[in-house]
C-alpha cells in the first residue's frame, strides 16, 4: 500500500478514535448526577439563573439527546470545546496555552527514558551475570515501585533544602529575561527535575526490557553470522543487534504514552509546571468541568497522535512490517 493511502487510512482511523472520545465526554456530562447545565457552568458559584438559562439555550439542553450530541460534535469539530467560567476564556484557548509545556515535559521524559534505559540495558547485557547486571535489576525494580509524586517530592526536598542547585518549581525564572537562547536555557534548567522524575519509572522498565531483549538477540543466528563475517564486536552490537533489540522497547514505549501523560499530571503538580496537568488540577479545585473535560479530550488526542507516530516508527525500524 502506498504511503499516501497508508497515511490517509491512519488519519481516518485516528479521527474515528477522536470521535469516540468526544462521545464518551458527552456521555460523561450527561451521566453525571445533577444538572448538565451546572456541569457545563461549573459549580463555582458564578452560575446564576441567567447564565444557566443562557447555557441551556446555547447548548440546547432542552432538546433531545441526539440533537445535543450532534451539536456537541459539530462544535468540537470547529474547535469549540466550551467556555471556562473560571478563567473566563474559551476552553480551547486555555488548553492551547498550556499544551506546549506538557508536550515538552512528556517528550523529554520519554526520550530520556528510552535513551538511558537502552544504554543501561545494553551495558548490562554485555556482562550477564555480573554485579552490575544484578544492580540494574534491583535498581529497575526500585525505580518501578516508587510513586512518581513521591519521587518528585523527595527531589524537591533534596534540591530545595539540601543542595539548592536546581529550581524546584515553575518553568521560568521571572527574573531572567533576554533573547531566545537565554530563555530556552532557563526553561531547560527548570525542565531537568520534572522530566527526570517522570522518566524514572520508564527508565527502570526499559533497562530491564532492553537487557532481556539484547540477551535474546545476541544469542540468535544472524549475530553468529555477523561475527563469522569478521565484524568487530562493536559493529555487531551497535549495528546488528541493537536495532533488533530496540523493537520491543519502541512498542512498549508507544503504548505507554497515555501513562506518561497521566504521570505528567502528578509531576506538574509537584513541580508547579504550568502544563495541562496543573490546569486539570486547578479546574477540579474550581469545579470548572468544561476545562477538565477539555483537558481529557486534548490529552487523548495527544495519545492518538503518539500511537500513530509509534506505528510508523515501528514500520520504519522493522522492514518485515512494511508490506502491510
Amino acid at each position: 500500500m502506498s504511503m499516501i493511502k497508508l497515511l490517509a487510512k491512519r488519519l481516518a482511523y485516528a479521527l474515528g478514535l477522536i470521535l469516540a472520545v468526544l462521545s464518551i465526554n458527552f456521555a460523561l456530562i450527561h451521566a453525571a448526577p445533577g444538572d448538565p447545565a451546572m456541569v457545563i457552568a461549573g459549580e463555582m458559584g458564578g452560575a446564576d439563573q441567567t447564565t444557566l438559562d443562557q447555557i441551556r439555550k446555547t447548548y440546547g439542553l432542552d432538546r433531545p439527546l441526539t440533537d445535543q450530541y450532534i451539536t456537541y460534535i459539530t462544535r468540537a469539530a470547529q474547535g469549540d470545546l466550551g467556555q471556562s467560567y473560571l478563567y473566563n476564556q474559551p476552553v480551547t484557548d486555555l488548553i492551547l496555552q498550556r499544551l506546549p509545556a506538557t508536550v515538552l515535559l512528556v517528550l523529554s521524559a520519554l526520550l530520556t527514558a528510552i535513551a538511558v534505559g537502552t544504554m543501561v540495558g545494553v551495558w548490562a547485557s554485555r556482562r550477564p551475570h555480573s554485579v552490575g547486571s544484578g544492580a540494574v535489576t534491583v535498581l529497575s525494580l526500585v525505580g518501578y515501585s516508587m510513586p512518581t509524586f513521591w519521587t518528585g517530592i523527595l527531589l524537591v526536598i533534596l534540591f530545595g533544602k539540601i543542595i539548592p542547585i536546581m529550581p524546584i518549581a515553575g518553568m521560568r525564572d521571572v527574573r531572567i529575561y533576554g533573547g531566545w537562547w537565554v530563555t530556552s536555557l532557563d526553561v531547560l534548567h527548570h525542565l531537568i527535575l520534572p522530566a527526570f522524575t517522570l522518566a524514572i519509572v520508564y527508565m527502570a522498565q526499559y533497562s530491564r526490557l532492553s537487557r532481556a531483549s539484547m540477551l535474546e538477540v545476541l544469542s540468535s543466528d544472524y549475530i553468529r553470522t555477523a561475527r563469522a563475517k569478521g565484524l568487530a564486536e562493536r559493529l555487531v552490537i551497535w549495528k546488528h543487534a541493537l536495532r533488533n533489540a530496540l523493537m520491543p522497547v519502541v512498542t512498549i514505549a508507544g503504548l505507554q504514552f497515555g501513562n506518561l501523560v497521566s504521570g505528567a499530571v502528578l509531576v506538574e503538580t509537584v513541580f508547579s509546571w504550568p502544563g495541562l496537568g496543573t490546569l486539570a488540577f486547578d479546574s477540579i479545585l474550581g469545579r470548572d468541568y468544561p476545562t477538565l473535560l477539555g483537558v481529557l479530550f486534548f490529552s487523548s488526542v495527544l495519545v492518538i497522535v503518539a500511537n500513530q507516530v509509534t506505528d510508523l516508527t515501528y514500520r520504519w525500524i522493522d522492514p518485515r512490517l512494511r508490506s502491510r
Partner: protein
Amino acid sequence: MNATALSSPTSLSDPTPGSRPAQAPGPLLEVENLSVEFDTRKGVARVLESVSFALNRGQTLGLVGESGCGKSMTALAIMRLIPNPPGRITAGQVRFEGTDLLSLSDPAMREIRGNRVSMIFQEPMTSLNPVYTVGEQIAEAVRLHQRLDRRAAHARAIEMLEQVGIPAARTRVDEYPHQFSGGMRQRVMIAMALACNPGVLIADEPTTALDVTVQAQIFDLISDLRSRTGTAVVLITHDMGAIAEMTDRVAVMYAGRIVEEGTVAEVLEHPLHPYTQGLIACAPGRRTAAHGEPLEEIPGTVPSLLERRGGCAFADRCRHVLPRCRLDLPAETQFDGGQRRVLCWLHAEGGS
C-alpha cells in the same frame, strides 16, 4: 589496496589484486591436536579431543558423524567462534597458510574471518539479519575486507547474487531476507561467504534445514562454485550421499574424535572402523539392506561427554568389541603414509 568503481567486472576467480599473500607450501589448512572443553552445570564436557586433519588447496573434505559428535564444534573452533565462557580451546593448532590461527590477535583473526576462511551455517531462515537488505549484508563483508567503497561493494553484491543463481539480482539485492525462501536465503549466505574469495569455505550442514529438492540444488551450487574458484571446502554433514558425491576425502567423527579418515572411495568401499561401517550400513539405499527389510541401525546412543571412562568411546555399541577396547584408548594407525587413518584396536599393528 583501495579499489574504487571497477570498470570491468571481477569474476569470482580473480581476487582483488594484492589481497592474497604468496602461497605458502604445504596444506592450506592444517588442524593439529585440537581440543575443546565446555563448562556445563554438571561439569566439564570435553567436546573435542585431539582432532587433526589437513586440507589442501582445492580439496573438499567431508566431516561426518552423528549429532553431537563435534563436527560443528570443530568448525567453530577453526573460526574461533566458540563462545568463551563457557567454552575454550585447550590445546592444538589451526594452521592456515602456515599461520596458527589460534595464536593470532583478535583483530588479525577478524581479518581472516569471512575473508580468507568463511563459514555458512545450518539454519538459513534465521541466519540473516531481518532488518537489513541482503545486498547490504553482502556488501558489508566486502567493504570491510576488501576496502571497496559503497558503490563497488553494492555492485559486487549484485554480482555475487547472480553467481549463486538468484534471478533478477539487480532488484532483489535491495530486498529483505523475509522476502526470500529458505533455499534462496542459503544461496545468499553462500554469496556472502564467497564474496571475498576465501581460500576455505566451511559448510556446516548447509542443507539439513531445507527441502530435499532444494538440497540437491544447493549441493550443485557449491560444487559449481568450488570448481570455478578453486576454493577448498570442509563439508560438515550427516548425509552419506552428499559425502559420496561431493567430497574428495572424508573424516568420520565420534564423541569428539576423528575415528577414521581417508579418500572418499576408500572409506566408503572399505570402511575400517566399526562405526563407519555402521554409518554406511544405516544409509538407506545401500546394497546391504534389501528392499522391504528393516534398516540397519547402530544400537545405543552416544555416551555423555562429561564423564570419559578409559578406553574407546564406541566400545559399548561396537559389535566387534575387544576387552582391550574398554581399557585403553586405541592408538592411531596410519596407512599409505598418513593418508589413511583409523582409531581402532582391530586395525592396530599387533592388535588381536
